[in-house]
C-alpha cells in the first residue's frame, strides 16, 4: 500500500494505482474526458490535470502514485489550466448539439463548460427532445442554437423559444451551423434578429453575428 495525500488528506491505495484512484478514494473528484477505467489511459485530453506538491501539473488518470505523493485537485492554477484546455477542446469541437446523441443535458463537455465558465456550447445541448418537438421544426425563431448554455434550458423545456438571455456564442462555426438550421427549417432571419435584439442589443459582437448568419443563410441560397 502506498500513502498519498490528496488535498492534504491522507489516503492509502494499492501499489501501481494511479492518482485518480487515490483522488476518488479520498472522496474528491477530477473531471475526465478521454479516460475510461480499464479501457483508455491515453492522457490526451489533459482535463484531469492535478497539481503535485512540487508544482508540476500531471494528468491524474495516467500518473502512477508513489509514496508520500502530494496531490492538489482544485488549486487556482489547476482550474485556470483546465479552463484554457477546455476552451481549446471546444475550439476544435464540432458543435452540432442539435443532432448530438448527448443532447438534453447529458453532455460532459457542457457540464465542464458550465463549471469552468467557458462559452461555446449552445442551449440546444441542454434542451431535451423527450416529449418535445424541436421549436425550430415548429418554425419558431428559437435562439437555442446560438445562445450560451448553462441555464438548463427552462424555456425550451416548457415549449417556449429560447430568447438568448445568457448571451450569444460568437464562434463562427456555431453560427454557421445555426444559420443552416434556420434555413433548413425556413425560419426568416428577420425574426431571429428581432429576438436577438431583446437581450443582445449592446453586445459588441452583434454585427459580426448578424453578418455571419446572413452570409451563411443567403450564401446557401445561391447554390
Amino acid at each position, binding site marked *: 500500500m502506498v500513502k498519498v495525500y490528496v488535498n492534504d488528506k491522507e489516503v492509502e491505495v494499492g501499489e501501481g494505482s494511479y492518482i485518480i484512484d487515490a483522488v476518488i478514494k479520498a472522496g474528491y473528484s477530477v473531471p475526465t474526458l478521454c479516460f475510461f477505467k480499464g479501457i483508455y489511459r491515453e492522457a490526451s485530453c489533459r482535463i484531469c490535470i492535478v497539481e503535485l506538491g512540487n508544482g508540476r501539473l500531471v494528468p491524474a488518470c495516467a500518473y502512477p502514485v508513489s509514496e508520500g505523493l502530494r496531490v492538489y485537485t482544485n488549486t487556482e492554477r489547476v482550474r485556470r489550466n483546465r479552463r484554457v484546455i477546455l476552451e481549446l477542446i471546444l475550439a476544435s469541437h464540432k458543435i452540432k448539439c442539435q443532432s448530438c446523441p448527448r443532447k438534453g443535458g447529458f453532455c460532459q463537455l457542457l457540464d465542464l463548460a458550465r463549471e469552468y465558465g467557458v462559452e461555446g456550447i449552445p442551449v440546444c445541448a441542454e434542451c431535451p427532445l423527450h416529449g418535445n418537438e424541436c421549436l425550430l421544426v415548429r418554425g419558431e425563431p428559437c435562439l437555442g442554437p446560438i445562445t450560451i448554455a448553462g441555464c438548463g434550458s427552462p424555456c425550451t423545456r*416548457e*415549449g*417556449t423559444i429560447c430568447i438568448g438571455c445568457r448571451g450569444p456564442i460568437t464562434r463562427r462555426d456555431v453560427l454557421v451551423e445555426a444559420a443552416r438550421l434556420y434555413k433548413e427549417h425556413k425560419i426568416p432571419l428577420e425574426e431571429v434578429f428581432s429576438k436577438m435584439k431583446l437581450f443582445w442589443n449592446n453586445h459588441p459582437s452583434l454585427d459580426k453575428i448578424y453578418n455571419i448568419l446572413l452570409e451563411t443563410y443567403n450564401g446557401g441560397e445561391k447554390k
Partner: protein
Amino acid sequence: MSYLELSERIDKVFGHLELRLSLRNGSVDAKFRVVHDMRLIEAVIEGRKVDEAPIIASRICGACSIAHFLASITAIENALGVELPDDIILLKESMNKIQVAQNNVVHLFFLALPDYYNARTLSELLSRNPDLIKVGFKLNNLCLQVVELLAGRIVNPNTYRIGGFTKKPSKDKVEKAVRILGEAEKLAREVVDHVTRLELPELVDPSPVYLVSESPIGYLSIGDYILSSTGEKFRAVDYPKYISEEVVDYSNSKVYRYNGRVFYVGSRARVLEYGERLVGLEDYVSSIVKELNNPYANIKAKALEILATIMDVKEKLDELKDRDLRLRTEYTIRSGEGVGVLEAPRGLLIHHYRVDSEGRVVYANIITPTAMNALHIEHSAMTLGKKIVEGELDVVEAKKYLSMLVRAYDPCLPCAVHVVVKQ
C-alpha cells in the same frame, strides 16, 4: 420648532427611495422621491413585436415578473381580440395568485415584520425569533415551488404565450402543486394568526379612496373593469378618462390621481372590496376590517391574502387536475388597442398597448401600483408630520414610523421608474 426636515432613505424596500418630510412654520410637506435609476421599459417595448413585449415587460421587476408578464400579455390578447377559454383564464389567474402569495410572504417576513419586533435587520430578527422567520422561509420556498410548476421558472414565466399555454401541465405536476399548497396552507394559517394580532401604530387614512380591478367572481381574478371605493365602475380601456397622470420634478416616477383625488391600491383595497367573498376566512376578515382605514394595516391584509390565495389556488388546481384542459387558442395578428388590468402583489397594474397591423407595438403605457400609491404615501406621511407638529410624536420615533409607513405600502421602485415622459 419652526423648521425641520426629515430626509429618510428607506431601506428594506425594493429599490432606492427617499422620503423627505419638511415641517415649516406649522405647514407640513412630504415628498416621495424615487431615486432609483430610470429604466424606460416602455420605450424599449415600443417598436417590438407583440410576442416580445411580454418578455420585456416581465423583466420590469424580478419580484413580480408574473404580474407584469400577465398584464402585458392580457393587454395584447385584448388588442388582438383573442378569446380565451375558461381553462386558460383559470390557470393564468392561479399563476398570478400564487405569486401574490409568495410576494406577500417576502414582504411580510423580510421587510415589514422586523419593524414590529424592534429589529433593524432581518438577521437580527432571525437571531431573536428564529422560529417565526423559519416559517417565512419555508412558506416562501413552498410558494416558489408552485410558481415554478405553473410558470416554468421562478422569475420570468415561460409557460405562457399569447393565446394560451405552451404545454398542458401534467397530472403529476398539478398533484404536486396541490400537495405543496396543502402544506403551505397550514403554515399560512399560523402566519395569519400571528400577524392579525400585531399592534399597529395609529394613523387614520387621510384619503380613503382606492381602486381595484374588478373580479366578477372569487378573489383577485383578471377582469376588464376597474372599481373604485366610490362605487364607480369603468372599463379598463377607459382608464385615461379617470386616472390622470402627472410628472413631478423631484421624483423619477410619475404620480397619479383618480378623478383629481389621491387614491391608493393594494391588498388593503382588495380586502375591503372583496373580503366578504373569502369563504372560510370570515373570522379573520371581520377581525381586521375595522382596522383597514389605517395604512399600516396593509400588512394584515397581505397576511390574510397569503392564506386566501393559497386556499383558492389549491382548490382551483384540485378541480383542474382530472379535467381535460383546453389550453391553447389560435390568434391572428391584427391592429388594435388593448389594456390589461390585474391585481399585482402591490395593487392594481395597468398595461396598455397599441398594436399595428404588422404586429408591432406602437404605443405602450404601464401604470404600476407603486406609482399610483406615491401621492397616497405622501399624504399619509403628511398626516404623520402633523402629529409631530402637534407634539404627539417624538421626532426620533417619527423617523421610525415614517419608514414603517412606507414599508407598509411595500413600494417597488424598479417597477415605478420605467415611466417615461411622453411627447
